[in-house]
């Protein structure tokens, strides 16, 4: 893991020193062991802060939208999920491939701070690192080791593409897809789907009842890249500002449909939801339906493909199915 950070610093410093790029997006450490926010690195010397650790989870790709499009090339470190965000923006014509230099980082998954807090005394933790398949927790009074797979984020336990699908340079060897990923991918959706309609409504009413309308799920989502969002529009106002269930459902359902066939399962919406709403279940439900009605499809793998809901084929199902 430390070697990984070293490698990142080296390639970023080189790219900046040789003026291949004007800035590099990666991750750095902050105050707490579980904080590895995105870093905007603009000089070779500043590349020293770059870190690839169990918490370098945040997707830096969406920040490219905010960058001045006239600005020269930007380097971005991309994990498997981040690289699919690049394809998302390319396919949506929100990014030009020539504008980015992609450093690919094969990734065996990132850690869930909540799982670590539940197992170790959080205030004594100094640093958490991966060593192979082990999670190493350095405490003020010692060191603990545990299987890394017990502490991964849910989204990483269902990740089918841990290796970048688009890159200019791969920093280290590719990693295998985790065992059990395919079984786990739709497990939660199927469980909810087995509930009776009333019970299912009660489940979602309870979950979405906690929504505070912060829009973090939308703002973090690389598939939500519209220049202006219908939910922000004041005149006419399509989404009421009163936090009631009708408009909360309006927001989440419309957003889910808008990203249907475009969501590439990074799971950031669910990870960062301050209210702990399992949003990925909604997206995965639609992915399941798309697989069923339009054939298996995974978004963000090839920017040149035809997204199922953006393409018409004669054999497409005719409409509202009786099921």
């Amino acid at each position, binding site marked *: 893991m430390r070697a990984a950070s070293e490698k990142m610093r080296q390639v970023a410093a080189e790219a900046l020193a040789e003026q291949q790029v004007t800035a590099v997006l990666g991750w750095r450490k902050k105050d*707490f062991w579980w904080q*590895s926010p995105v870093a905007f690195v603009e000089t070779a010397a500043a590349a020293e802060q770059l870190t690839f650790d169990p918490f370098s989870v945040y997707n830096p790709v969406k920040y490219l939208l905010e960058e001045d499009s006239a600005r020269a090339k930007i380097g971005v470190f991309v994990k498997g999920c981040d690289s699919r965000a690049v394809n998302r923006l390319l396919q949506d014509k929100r990014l030009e491939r020539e504008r980015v230099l992609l450093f690919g980082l094969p990734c065996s998954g990132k850690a869930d701070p909540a799982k670590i807090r539940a197992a170790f005394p959080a*205030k004594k933790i100094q640093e958490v690192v991966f060593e192979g398949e082990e999670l190493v927790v350095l405490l003020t009074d010692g060191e603990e080791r545990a299987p890394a797979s017990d502490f991964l984020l849910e989204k990483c336990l269902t990740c089918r593409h841990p290796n970048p699908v688009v890159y200019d340079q791969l920093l280290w060897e590719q990693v295998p897809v985790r065992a059990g990923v395919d079984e786990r991918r739709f497990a939660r959706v199927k469980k909810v789907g087995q509930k009776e309609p009333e019970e299912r409504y009660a489940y979602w009413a309870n979950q979405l009842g906690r929504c505070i309308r*912060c*829009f*973090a799920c939308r703002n973090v989502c690389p598939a939500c890249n519209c220049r202006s969002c219908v939910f922000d529009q004041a005149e006419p106002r399509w989404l009421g500002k*009163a936090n009631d269930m009708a408009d909360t459902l309006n927001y989440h359902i419309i957003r889910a449909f808008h990203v249907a066939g475009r969501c590439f399962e990074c799971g950031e919406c669910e990870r960062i939801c301050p209210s702990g709403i399992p949003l990925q279940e909604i997206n995965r439900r639609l992915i399941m339906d798309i697989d069923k009605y339009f054939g298996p499809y995974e978004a963000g793998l090839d920017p040149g493909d035809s997204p199922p809901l953006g393409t018409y084929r004669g054999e497409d199902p005719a409409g509202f199915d009786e099921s």
Partner: protein
Amino acid sequence: MKKIAKAKLQDLWRHLSEEAALYLPAGSDGVVDFARWQEDLAVDLGELNVCVPPKKFFYPQTETVLKYEIGDDLQLVDFSGHAGERAILFGVRPCDVASFSMMDKVYLGDPADEAYRRRRENTCVIALGCQEPEETCFCLTFDIDPGKAPGADILATDTGEEVVLVAQSPKGEELLATLNGLLLEATSGDEIKVKDAQEQAKEGYVTHVSVRGLMEKLDGMFTDAYWNRLYRRCIACGTCTYLCPTCHCFDLQEYATGNCGERIRCWDTCMAADFTQMAGGHNPRPTQKERVRQRFMHKLNYFPRQHGGEYACVGCGRCVRKCPVNLDILEVIREVGGAADGQ
């Protein structure tokens, strides 16, 4: 000073729920929030920071201000004077209690907000002293004593097998008096246990920051290049503002259909572009930079400048925990710094 065995808390809550609507921290789907008490509620008194701070009881995310109907004449129903329900909040932590007095400065100033005032009056706050801070707790920075809550009507302290209750206001005394059959008189031994617990509460902090001189330093930083760097990570969600116990900005919205309508007041967030969007199209805070600057300047400069030096932060750490991109007030306090001897 009274006390009750922890094993009898359920009886206490049952009794309180007969007095008024009782709310306690409770877990649902792994998230702890204040919820209305009922026999099978999964009460969780261990959580220090409930997800949505209890400011929502006085300043709800959405409330109707008035309703109208236009017939032969205008029928108007004004909600601002409605009392709302009588409520008891059990288990409010000292930082959140401190946030109430901060909110009071805004909503009970001149003119007072009638709906807020009545909710405050109709609600009895039972605070629960903290025992063990979390890694993100930094209430000490703002001189908030984690074992005490002077703004609460009753202070509850966990002394091990029992909970000691001290009335701190006439409202609190009145409520405790209704519980006579359930409570025991606390002894001088219990008093010592409470003092010990309060002393103990100040130990174990791992986050130390100082705000000495910070307000003064920020006076000259409106155009500082610092903000150019700070805002870049912000994704403009409302997490920090909505989950902040001291954020109090609202929007008024009209819901009109045909000849009737409703005016609502709802939480608003200065992180959103439309917060300062003018009808004519101009936006005085055109980018996220100005919005991020506003939030921190409001908490650490404008508010204390207007309210006798009191910072609009209670050190609860919610923004530290919950910000999706780890952009929080701790970072700003540390990076801006203040007096030379600040930590």
